[in-house]
């Protein structure tokens, strides 16, 4: 159950088509791009796991401020080091594809934004999220006052049960009303 050599078997291809939201062309393109990341010896092994540093050289991920989180969320490795197998990579592309459902996208978006992996988005997560969006240097951050005002506004809009954090269902609820989400949460190779 993995990919060997440089060709995908036909039944494996149709199995992937059923398990993901990707079309045949997209799966083949993903396979091609993934095998380009492998070294020569790794190409012969089935189910190779590519370390995060190499995944992050892909142009689609290289400049993304959430790249480390993305690798971490989709990785199935036990060491939690963000390394991806080909199937993890397909999962990643499937969640970010055009035809993925809103629920899948919002689920994975929640996990990507949950920086401390505790199941809710609390003030710390939100602050890290805003800093990721605006930039890491000092002059591109919001002031503490502005950050406080912003986080208060976000919690006011999304925290329905007023517990100070945004849990998954609140997040999905606010995303369902957000018109930009589906078009922006997209990565196409």
């Amino acid at each position: 159950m993995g990919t060997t050599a440089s060709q995908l078997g036909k039944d494996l291809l149709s199995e992937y088509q059923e398990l993901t939201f990707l079309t045949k062309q997209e799966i083949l393109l993903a396979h091609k791009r993934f095998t380009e990341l492998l070294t020569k010896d790794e190409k012969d092994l089935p189910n190779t796991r590519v370390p995060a540093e190499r995944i992050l050289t892909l142009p689609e991920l290289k400049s993304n401020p959430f790249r480390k989180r993305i690798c971490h969320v989709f990785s199935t490795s036990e060491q939690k080091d963000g390394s991806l197998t080909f199937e993890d990579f397909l999962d990643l592309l499937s969640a970010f594809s055009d035809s993925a459902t809103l629920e899948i996208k919002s689920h994975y978006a929640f996990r990507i934004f949950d920086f401390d992996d505790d199941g809710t988005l609390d003030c710390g997560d939100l602050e890290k999220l805003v800093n990721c969006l605006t930039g890491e240097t000092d002059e591109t951050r919001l002031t503490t006052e502005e950050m406080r005002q912003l986080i208060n506004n976000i919690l006011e809009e999304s925290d329905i049960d007023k517990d100070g954090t945004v849990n998954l269902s609140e997040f999905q609820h606010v995303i369902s009303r957000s018109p930009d989400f589906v078009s922006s949460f997209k990565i196409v190779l």
Partner: protein
Amino acid sequence: MEVDSVFYTDHSGRVHNNPLLDQLPSYQSLLYRRKSSTSGTKRRSSSRGRSGSSGSGKWGVSTVSRREEKQKSQTVQRPVRELATTMAEKRRHITQRLEEARELSSLRQLRQSTRRHLRRLRDDVYEWLSWLKLWRGDIHLIEGMFGTGILSYFSFLRFLVMLNLIIFVLMFSFVMLPLIIAPHVSGNITYTQKVGSVCSEYSGTARRGLVNFHEHITDLLSGGGFLERTYLFYGYYKVDKIHFPKTTYNLPLAYLLVTIAYLFLSLIWIVKRSATGFKRNLIQDEDRFQSFCNKIFAGWDFCITNENAVRLKRSSLLYELRTDLEEERIKQKIADRTRKERCRIYLIRLILNLFVIGVLAACFYSIYAATIFSQKVQMDNIKENFIVDLIYEYLPSIVITLANFITPLLFSVIINYEDYSPAFEIRFTLMRCVFMRLTSIGVLLFSLWSQITKCDDGPCVCGYNNKLYSCWETRVGQEMYKLTIFDFIIIVAVTIFVEFPRKLIVNYCDCGLAKWWGQQEFAIPQNVLEIVYGQTICWIGTFYSPMLPAICTMKYFFIFYIKKVSLINNCRPATRPFRASSSNFFFLAVLLIGLALACVPVTFSMAQINSSHACGPFINYNTSWEVLPTTVSELPGGIQKLLLALSSEAFAVSFFVVTCLAMFYVIALAGAHKRVINQLREQLAMEGRDKRFLIQKLCQAQRLSAIKSPVSKSRPRRSSPSYHTSFSNNFNEAVFLAHSPPASSTHV
């Protein structure tokens, strides 16, 4: 810190784990699964197909018995790929479902497999259709470099290309094709003619004798001369009926119906395309349209790949957030205004609006004067020299373009003094620019018509000035043609002669001018207004010039590539971000305004102005519209009665009343839904507080019982050691709200 536990702050603000909250069914159903390669661990089976109550994110709870799950999963089988799990897990589900399927009856198996095959077929069809989409690769590239805001402009452009193509295909197949194939299919064409009347003399501008080369160029650019009596213009279709072997084709009727059809088709297509955006606006009218959550959670375009674009996107997001936060503060300031200040502001706004109206009136008058001057010069046939002739021909277009260049700058200066909130400023300036652009076409047409229907001596004999405009529809068609060509020339010229030099100056010259001017920004609103203006001209002009949609299709086709090249080489993304969601809605709203504006002249000229007697398909009728009643009266009795009944007042009034009732019902329903939503929201907040209150009480009770019976401290807890010992050691079974957590429940 236990990864999956819920934090609970008590009054002193200390955060500690609360295992009670962890056990609540609602929390357990929300916990997502960890992706773990240890497939041997007993997992919480949160993904055995969705149960019927598929809300957002509620999966099957682990505590439901297996039999119930099986029943539920049989009733609703979501496709496996919609589960948010790893590939290995999804495979397990497929094998499990196949096992379950084997236990089902053969009929159900057949149904399931057909459903699967149909789904696969549908996916293949969609894949094939999307492969056919025009410019996929280019748009993907632009998206990667500039994000979804600018992308929406280019997909709007692509939509207009398709729309114009469809309109042209309509026009071609119903109006031109019969004419072209008639000789080949032994059809007999009867031409229209009105003998004897003075109105039916056609004095076209066809040139005779030796023609200079540059006059051909003038003709090409102005639609006169050799182009006048071609398929390009209305005047060529001097056909009454085409008699094919089996049928008779009524060309005037077809011409009229196709006009109505393309306007209607455009309306339906635009409304359909804007339906999703509009629905969202309706839902969101209680929240701010650009809510903070939308900006933060959906703010990052994951498709951007360019390093530069990332930096710019970050700075534009920062700018947008700061502006919004500032806007909140300004709103507070506005609410705090005193009465005196408010009066002063209103007075200033009144004066400035009067000034704006004055400027608009001046522009409209200059367009009117330019049109009349240009028409007079063309009629008097004064030929000075090539360039001056062209300038006279294009004078209205030049004046319109100049006015549309100056007024936006003026508006953006004026709006600074009117002291509105920033978001409203942008929208108001845009509205003014839209109004200016689209009304200028209306003024041009109005001035044309005032010329056409004005005769020197009293009311016109033929209903129009037949001495000067023996074929006035062709003349109007020529003006529209000139507007289109000039618009295209301006876009190309601005790109070549303004944007490229600007880039060269800014990149290679270090002078103050370069710094002040700055790099070209791709201003989406202005670009959109340009192409909506062109599309409005196309809609108006298609009735007078049936090949205009084809010209517009090619024009937009080339504009795509010109804008793309200019964007990639010259421009940087705007510092003021234009959101994709609102922009789609804005584009289609402006396009609808353009369509509405285009319908007015067309219907007016069809219904009111006498069609010319010297050319065109409507010679035998007074107005273009008349062909419909005439045809209806020739129909068999039954259909005629039906059509007359449909157009009678009784039917119209009752239809109107029924539509009003339906509208009131829907509005009332929407209001009721909104009230229910508000109530539910309050209830949810209250439930949350109830929950926390109860848990607080429980914890107090635990503490009291722990103080009373300290013996249980030494007993080891059989659940995971991650819970805080102070709580977990003091539990007795009665305190558990749900069931005891299974081993390794919260860290999967």
